C-alpha cells in the first residue's frame, strides 16, 4: 500500500506545486491540520479556533483543530516538525516557545529558524498586576514592603517570566518568592484567593483592571499599557529585559513561499476584518490584532531570539 501511495502523494504534491505558481491561486492540497499548543477552552485556544472557523468561512479551506499541549509548546513544535511542509500542517504557539523555551530546554532543533513563521496574531500586553487597594498596588509599596522584610509572593507562568522576575528583583535588591502557576488565569486566581501578592499577566488582566478590581503596577512590554497609561515600564524600574512576545502561527521548515504568503494573508485578513468573531475576541481580550507576516515577522523573531539569549546568559550568570 505504501509503495503505491508514495508516488501518488508525490504526484499530487508536484501537481499542487505547479498550481501554486501563482500565490493568489494557492490552495491547500488537503485539509489543514491546525495544532493548538494551549489547553482547550482557554483564551488562546478560542482565538485559534475562531481564526480557523473564519478562514473556513472565507476561503472554504477545511481546517481540523487539534490540541497538542505541554512543555511550553515544545511538544507541538516537535510534532509539527515531522509533518509535511505543504501547508497542510500549521501550529499556534507563542514566540517564546521557539526562542526562550527551545534554548532553555537545550533543543536547538526547535528554534525559530527550524520553522516557517506564518503570521503573528496578537502581542502580549503583559503587566505586573496586583489587587487594587491591597498592600502591593504600587511599585513604591512593593519596594517598601520588601525593605521592611515582608516576603513577597510573585506569580509567574513561565520560566522566562521567572528569570525576568529574578533579575528585576536583583536590580532592586529584593528577593521575591517566585511562584510558578498555570498561566495568567492561575496568577489572577492566586491574587484573588490571597495565595499570591503580585504577578505577571499577559493580557487577561485587562477586564479586571478596567473594572477596578486589579491594577497594572507596571508594563512588562516595551510600550505603555492601554488600560494603565500611567504605569511605568519595567525597564524604568531597573529591568534590562522585557516580556515582549506574540501569539503566532507557524508551519514546518521549507514551506513554499507562495503557500506561506497565502496562509499568512488568510490569517491577517480574517483577524483584521471587523466582522469576524476572531477579530471581536482579540479586541476584547488581547488588546486588538497585531499581525506581522513575511520579513517583518522574521525580523521581530530575530530580535526576540537575541533577547532570549541575553536573558538566559544573564540569568545563569547570576
Amino acid at each position, binding site marked *: 500500500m505504501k509503495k503505491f501511495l508514495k508516488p501518488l502523494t508525490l504526484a499530487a504534491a508536484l501537481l499542487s506545486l505547479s498550481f501554486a505558481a501563482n500565490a493568489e491561486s494557492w490552495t491547500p492540497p488537503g485539509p489543514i491540520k491546525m495544532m493548538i499548543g494551549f*489547553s*482547550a*477552552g*482557554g483564551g488562546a*485556544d*478560542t482565538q485559534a*479556533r475562531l481564526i480557523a472557523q473564519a478562514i473556513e468561512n472565507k476561503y472554504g479551506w477545511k481546517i481540523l483543530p*487539534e490540541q*497538542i*499541549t*505541554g*512543555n*511550553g509548546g*515544545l*511538544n507541538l513544535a*516537535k*510534532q509539527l516538525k515531522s509533518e509535511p511542509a505543504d501547508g497542510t500542517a500549521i501550529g499556534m504557539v507563542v514566540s517564546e516557545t521557539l526562542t526562550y*523555551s527551545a534554548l*532553555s*530546554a*537545550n*533543543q536547538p532543533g526547535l528554534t525559530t529558524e527550524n520553522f516557517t513563521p506564518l503570521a503573528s496574531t496578537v502581542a502580549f500586553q503583559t503587566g505586573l498586576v496586583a489587587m487594587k487597594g491591597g498592600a502591593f498596588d504600587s511599585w513604591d509599596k512593593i519596594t517598601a514592603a520588601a525593605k521592611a522584610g515582608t*516576603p513577597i*509572593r510573585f506569580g509567574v507562568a513561565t*520560566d522566562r517570566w521567572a528569570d525576568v522576575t529574578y533579575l528585576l528583583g536583583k536590580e532592586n535588591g529584593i*528577593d521575591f*518568592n*517566585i*511562584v*510558578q*502557576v*498555570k498561566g495568567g488565569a492561575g496568577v489572577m*486566581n*492566586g491574587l*484573588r*484567593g*490571597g*495565595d*499570591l501578592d503580585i504577578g505577571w499577566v499577559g493580557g487577561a488582566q485587562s*477586564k*479586571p483592571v478596567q*473594572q477596578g*478590581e486589579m491594577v497594572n503596577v507596571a508594563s512588562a512590554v516595551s510600550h505603555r499599557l492601554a488600560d494603565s497609561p500611567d504605569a511605568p515600564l519595567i525597564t524604568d524600574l531597573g529591568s534590562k529585559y522585557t516580556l515582549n512576545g506574540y501569539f503566532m502561527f507557524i508551519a514546518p521548515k521549507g514551506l513554499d513561499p507562495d503557500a506561506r504568503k497565502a496562509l499568512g494573508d488568510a490569517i491577517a485578513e480574517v483577524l483584521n476584518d471587523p466582522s469576524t468573531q476572531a477579530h471581536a475576541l482579540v479586541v476584547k481580550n488581547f488588546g486588538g490584532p497585531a499581525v506581522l507576516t513575511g520579513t517583518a515577522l522574521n525580523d521581530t523573531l530575530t530580535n526576540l531570539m537575541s533577547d532570549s539569549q541575553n536573558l538566559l546568559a544573564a540569568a545563569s550568570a547570576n
Partner: protein
Amino acid sequence: MTEVLHYIWLGILAVFNGYPLFTLGGIAIPAAPIMVCGGLLTGIAVGATPGLAGPMAMAIALPILISVFGFTPDALLPVFGFLIGIMKGATVGGAVPAILFNMPGTPDSVMTTLDGHPMAKAGQPRRALRIAQLSSVTGDTFSDLVLFVCAPFLAVAVEAYLDLPEKTALLILSISFIAAVMGNSRGKGLLAVALGLATAFVGTGQALTPRLTFGNNDLSSGFSLVSVILGVLIIGEILIGIEGLWQASRLGKKKEDAPHDPAQDDLQPGDIGRIAPYVARSAFIGTIIGALPGIGSTLAATLGYSLGARRHFKRGKPGDTPFGEGAPEGIAATEAANSAVSGANLIPVLSLGIPGNAAAVFLILAADSIGGFNPGPQVFHFTSPQVNPELVTAFGIFTLMSIGNILNWTFGGRFMRAMGVLARIPGPILLPMVLLVTLTAIYVQQTSFFALWVTMGFGVLGYVFRRSNIPVLPFVIAFILARPLEQNAREAFSATGGDPWFLFHSATSIALILAAIASVIFLGRKQAES
C-alpha cells in the same frame, strides 16, 4: 447577599438563555434543559439494564456530546445537563430490575432487592416501584439542597482560611482517606493510589523536558485523562463481564427467568406517612456519607437499611411486614440513602475539585475536556462588577440539578415503570457494543492509535485490579488529584521561599497531615464488612 442572588439569577439565565438547540416558531429552545431531560431518560434506562451503570453511560455519552456541542464554554451547561441527567436517572432506574427480577441494576440497589423483590412477588410490583421512586427522589432532592447551600460556603472558607501549604495538606488528606476507606484493604488502597500518582507523573511537571517518558514522544504530554479513566473504569469492567459470561457458559449455568406478576397495584393509603421517617433518616445518612469523598453509595445504602431495620424492629406495630419480607420501609430506607449520596458527592467536587465517586470523575473529565470551568475553590469568587463565568456555570449546574429533580418527581416514575423490559438484554450483545462504542469514543477524541493502545493497556490494568480485589476508584482519583497536588506543593514550596518543611508550619496543616495518617491507621475497613 444581593451579589449571591445576582449570580443565582445569572446561573438560571445561563441555562434557559444559553446555547439554543433549535428554534420553534421563532423562539429559541435552550439546549441545557432538554439535555437534562434526555440524560434523565437515558439514565433511567441505563440504570434499569443490569450490566450497564451510570458511569458507563456517561463515558460513552461524553465524546458524542462534545462532538455535538464543541469545545466552547457554551457547551458546558448542555453537556453537564446530560451527564447530571444520567447520574440522577441511573440512581432511580437501578431499582427497577432489583424489584422486578431480583437483579440489582447497580451495585447500590443490592439492598433494594431484599424488600423490593418480595413485595413484587407478592403481587405489588407497582407499589414497590412507586415507593422506590418517591424515596429515591426525596433523598436526592434533600442532598442537592445541602449541596447548593454548603458548596459555596465551604469553598469560600477554604479560600479564606487555607493557604498554599494547607491546601497541599488537604489534598494529601483526601488521597489518604480515599485509599483507606475504599475497598477492603488499606494496603491495596494505598497501592492503587500510589500507582495512580505514578501514572500521572509521566510526561507532566514543570520542566521543559518531559519526564519519565523513556524518550517516547507519544508520552511527552503524559497519559490522557480520557484514556486512563475509560480504560480502567470501563474497559476493565467489560473484560470482567466477558470473563463472567465465559465462565457462565462453560458451567452451562443459565439465569432463571423471574416470574412477572402483572397484577395492578399502587401506593396504599398511609404509605407515605409510613415511609417518611425512614426516608428522612436515610437521606441524612446518605448526604453525610456523600460529602466525604470516596465512601460511596453502597455503604450509605447498607447503613440506611440496617438503621432502618433496627428502628422498624423497635417501633414496628404487630402486623407490619418485617424487613426482608417486602416491607415498604425497607425499600424506602435503601433508596433514599443511596440516592442522597449523588448530590452531596458534588460538594467536594465543586468546592475543592476532589471527586468522590465515578460519576464525579466523569463530570471532572467533561470540564477538563471542554475547558473554561475548573472545579475548585476559585470557582466561588463572587467578583463584582466583573462577572465570574465559572461561578455562573456553577449556579447553572445547580439549576440543572433542580430541573432534573423536578423531572424525576413528575414523569420519572412513569418512565421507570416502562423500563422493566431492558433487564432482558443479554450480556453477549451488550458488552461488545459498549466496548466498540468506548473505543470509538476515544479515537474520535484523540485521533491517535496510540491512545487506543494506552486505553487497552489501562483496561488490562483495570481487569488485573478487579481480579486481585484492588479497588479501581482510588487509582483514578489519585490520577486526577496528582496534578493539583504537585502544583499546590510546588507553589507552597516556592511561596514559602523554598522551605522544605512548609507542611509543618501552621497548626491547620499539621492537623490535616495528622488526620491523613490517622485515616490510614484507623479507617481501614475490615475484611468481614465488605
